[in-house]
Every structure is written in structure tokens, then in C-alpha cells.
């Protein structure tokens, strides 16, 4: 287990322990004393963390710090990966809905099975809203998705974001249906 992810795991547990009630402070201290965590205990923690993250509020999620991106992902060829599902957003929001969190959890599992993969998360908006507002919103949606993946244990150094605002819709229509499709975060992987 990468050192960074271990840190994040423990940080999450500490920070949510008081709100969740299912991980106590003494348990954290026990873990801290041990030199190595047993795999089975790690799995249990991962499951608990996953459950916690699925349940906590958006504000609490946004308050959890994750290592920022060091640089933009440039000059790479990107591939579509059908197994990595899009997540969708409500109008004018970057909030991760329960469905979105489920999909992100599945996507995180894919990353665990493909340890070297670098991923670019694109954040998109529907055409309503000014260009500038949508650029900021798309950027937030991409970063929100990245934060969740990192909190789930993905390597922050391998996840990049880019906000496209309303500039790259998947459906050019002007209907509620088209708009709902366009409010998304989309995942592409760097071609090996």
C-alpha cells in the first residue's frame, strides 16, 4: 500500500470518526502503534472507508484535503475505457450524488486492477450558463470526482483533471435530456 494512500486513509478515518461514530479514536491509536497493517484489517478499513464516503455530506467531502495535481496532463494520447462510467450532475451543481459515488467506487476498483494507469477526468456542463461560469463549474466537477477517487485510495499522482465548461457537449441538443447528458465527468486513460 502506497504511503500516501495510507496517510489519506488514516486521515479520513480520523476526520470522520466523530461524525460517523463507527471508528473510534482508540482504534485509530491502536492502528498507529502497529508497524505494518495486516491485509485483512486493511480490507476491512477500506470497506468501512468506502461506506463512510458514500454516506457523508458534500460539505464534509469538500473539507477533506487531497494532494493537488502537480501539473496538467499534456502531450499524451488518451483512450476511451468503456468500463469507466460517466458520472452525472444536477443542474448548476458539482455535488456527487449517491449514484455518482457508486460509479466512482466502481471506477476506483478498476484503477486498483490497473495500477499503472494514468487517468484524465474531464468535467463538463450543459450549455445554459455563461461561458466563464461553466468553465469554473466544469473544473469543479472534475476536481470533485478526483477528490473522491483519491479518498477511496487511488494514487493522486496518477489522476489529472481538465474542465471543459460547456465547450465539449456529448449531445448538441437543446432539450432537458441533452442537457442532463452533458452535465458529466468523463474518464479517459493515457494510452500505454
Amino acid at each position: 500500500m502506497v504511503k500516501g494512500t495510507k496517510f489519506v486513509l488514516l486521515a479520513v478515518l480520523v476526520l470522520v470518526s466523530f461524525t460517523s461514530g463507527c471508528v473510534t479514536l482508540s482504534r485509530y491509536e491502536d492502528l498507529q502503534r502497529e508497524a505494518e497493517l495486516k491485509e485483512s484489517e486493511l480490507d476491512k478499513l477500506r470497506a468501512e472507508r468506502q461506506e463512510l464516503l458514500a454516506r457523508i455530506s458534500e460539505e464534509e467531502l469538500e473539507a477533506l484535503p487531497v494532494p493537488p495535481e502537480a501539473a496538467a496532463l499534456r502531450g499524451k494520447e488518451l483512450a476511451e475505457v468503456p468500463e469507466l462510467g460517466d458520472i452525472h450532475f444536477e443542474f448548476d451543481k458539482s455535488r456527487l450524488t449517491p449514484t455518482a459515488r457508486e460509479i466512482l467506487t466502481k471506477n476506483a476498483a478498476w484503477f486498483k486492477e490497473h495500477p499503472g494507469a494514468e487517468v484524465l477526468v474531464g468535467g463538463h456542463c450543459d450549455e445554459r450558463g455563461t461561458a466563464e461560469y461553466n468553465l469554473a463549474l466544469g473544473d469543479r466537477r472534475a476536481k470533485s470526482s478526483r477528490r473522491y477517487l483519491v479518498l477511496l485510495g487511488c494514487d493522486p499522482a496518477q489522476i489529472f483533471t481538465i474542465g471543459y465548461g460547456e465547450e465539449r457537449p456529448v449531445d448538441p441538443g437543446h432539450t432537458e435530456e441533452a442537457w442532463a447528458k452533458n452535465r458529466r465527468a468523463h474518464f479517459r486513460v493515457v494510452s500505454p
Partner: protein
Amino acid sequence: MRKVLITFFIFIINLTGGLAFGASELYIDITKPHFKKIVTAVPDFYRDGSFREDDNLSKKMAGILANDLKISGLFETIENPLFLREIVQREGNNKVDFSQWRLLGAQALVKGDYSVGEDKGLIIKCRLYDLLREEQILGKVYQGDQSLLRRMVHRFSDEIVLKLTGQEGMARTKIAFISDISGHKEVYTIDYDGYNLKRLTRNRSIALLPAWSPDGKRIAYTSYHADNPDLYFINLDGGHQVPASTFPGLNIAPDWSPDGNRIALTLSKDGNAQIYTFKIDGTALCRLTSHLRSDWSPCWSPDGKKIAFSSDRTGVPQIYIMNKDGTNIGRLTHQGSYNDSADWSPRGELIAFTSRQEGLFDIWIIDTDGRNARRLTSNSGNNESPSFSPDGRYIAFSSTRAGRSDIYIMNSDGSNQRRLTFFGGNNYCPSWSPLESQEDFENNVQKGGGN
């Protein structure tokens, strides 16, 4: 004295039928809320001193000039019905039959005469006459390549406006904007009257939010062609595109400080979109806002002391004003639940912005103290991205009233809305150029005085 003047005015009104000048000379005080437009005759230009029936350039020059006077909102033009042509043909280049022109209801007259040199260059002589005082009050000579025809005529239109109102005319300005007519969003410029479309970028990616430098020589904009929304500068001839800000995340919505030394922009490298400034050489990056919510779209005041910007710190986008160092943040807009894209009038007293009400966007203006919010567009699709002309009297904006997004201009009170782009595609994010400097004009076009 006053009694004498009043008697004089009445005499003039009787003579010419309905003038309302504040003085005995041809002049408009455009600071007054209601002024009378000057009725101006603009016949086709002469060529080599004589009138030619169907000369294209003659018609073109007169047409450009008359259009400039009309767009300014300060003039009513009499152009070229048949009887105008008769007078011009009869009187010849060097004479003016003042009473004949006055009979048409004109108060001012523009006459032009051009010739084509051996090198195919143009020499254009323009004169403005006060028909009341029966004298020439303006005369200029321009010399330049045929490709500069529009520019030279625009220059004389601006001389007319300056002479008769004391204010600079806008005919020699341009508007930068984004168009996708090529299949990709690129940066273009167009003359303020909708002609002379020029493409600046060829990145075949997504370009957004151009902003003109105060010296009129460069444009800042965002482009995705290096796999990130980065900020670039480009020269007006489309050459020398250089990266200006390439942080991870957003580098968007630039605005040049009025002295041209700094750029304010939106970066998201530290998490959320926030406002930063840096010096033109890329140094001295300074963060101005630090809020958990997003801040974006900075816009300098014309005195360089304050910055207006958008923020969703209350949950919805509203416009705020802060000092240029980020202190003293105050909220400007309180009506409606979506206000964005502020542009500060060069006169300093007004801010134009985009407001969404009942699902549609419109252009509004508001006093800088937050009072007198006024709506300028309505019932005409989505109207966004206002940009003031350098004299603050006009606003460029985008509108979808005709189907796709096009660039429009209007007076800053919302009147006289006219469309500029007619070539298809989607056209948005207008940015109005500064005035062309005298030096720049003379570098390209020779100008003579008197006549």
C-alpha cells in the same frame, strides 16, 4: 446679450426650419440627455475632380462614411437619391451651392474627391461644410494603399464627430471575438461596422474569452490546444502567439490593467477558481481572492484602483467589487439570482453585466454604487458578454435573437441595436478595441491637413 442671442436663434429657425442648436455653430452637446441629430448630406465622392455616374469606389466611400455617421447615433444622413447626384454633378468638386443643399433639409455636407496614383494607391480628399455659415470647417487628405480605403474613410468620420461633438468617434475601432465558422473556436477581429473580418488564431482547438490590450497591439485569450485551458498573447497581425499563463487547471477570463502592465485573470491551480494578477512579463503573481467558493471574470476599473468580479460565495453568481489588492470586497448586484460577465465603462461610472432572469440572459447596466440597475435587452433570445467601446457610449454583446449566436452593438442606453456578424457559425465573447493611436494610423496611412 441673451435677448440678442434668443432673437438670433429664432431668426435661424425660421430660415432653416427646425434647428435647435445651443450655439450659433454646428455642434452637438452629447452630454445632454436629448440632443438633435445633425442632418448631413453625404453624396458619392468625386473622382479626379469630376462626378462619375457609376463609380464603385465613389459610392463605397460615401457609403462607409454615411454609415459611420448613422451608427454614431448623432447624425441623420441624406445619402444619394437622384436629386443629390444632380446637385453634385452640376456644382462640381470645388463649389458648393449652399442654398440648394439647405433646401434638402441638410445642415452639414460632406464632399470627397479621390484619385488613384501610379502605384495604385489612393489619395482621398475629404471636406466638411457648415451649410448654415456657408463655409468649410474641416478638410483632410489621406494617402494609402487601396486595402486601407475603409480605414481612411473611418478616420474622416471620426474627425467629423470630433469636430462637431468634441468627443472621439469610434469608427476606427474593432471588435475581437470568438467564432466557430472554421469548424473550431478561434479568435477573430472585425471592424466596428461589421466589415473586414480577420482570423487571428489557427490552433484548431477551443479558443475563448479574448481581451484587448490597452495599446491595441495584442489580444489575450485562452486556448486548449496544448491540452489545458492556457492563456496566450497574440499580435494583431495574427503572428507571434506566446503562452502567458500555463498553470494546471483554468487560466481564463483575462483583463488588462488600464496602464497595460498587469493582467487580472482566473486560475484554479490552488483548488477553486480564484482571481489573480501578474505582470505582463509573467512575474509577480499575486492572489487576490481566497474563498471556499469560486471567484472569476475580473474586470479593472478605468482608474486601475478597483476590480469587479463574479463570485458564487452566496450560492449563486453575483458581481462584486474589490480594491486592486483584494481588500474591501463589496457586493454590487442584488437583483436576480444570476449575474456574471461584468465590464466597467471607460468613463468609470457604470458597469454592464449579464443577468439571467426566467431562464434567459440579458444585458444590464448598473451604477458603480449599486443603484439604478437597468435592463438593456429583452425578448430577444440570450444576450451575453457586454463590452464597452473606448468612449463608453456603446456596448458590444452577443445575442441569439436571430437563431445562432452573433455579435451586436448598441448605444449604452440600449437603443440602436445592430447586428455585426452575418457569415454563419456561432460568434461570441466580443471585446471592443481601444482607439487606434494617431501614431499607428500615420505609420500605415499618410495624412495631410488643411485644404
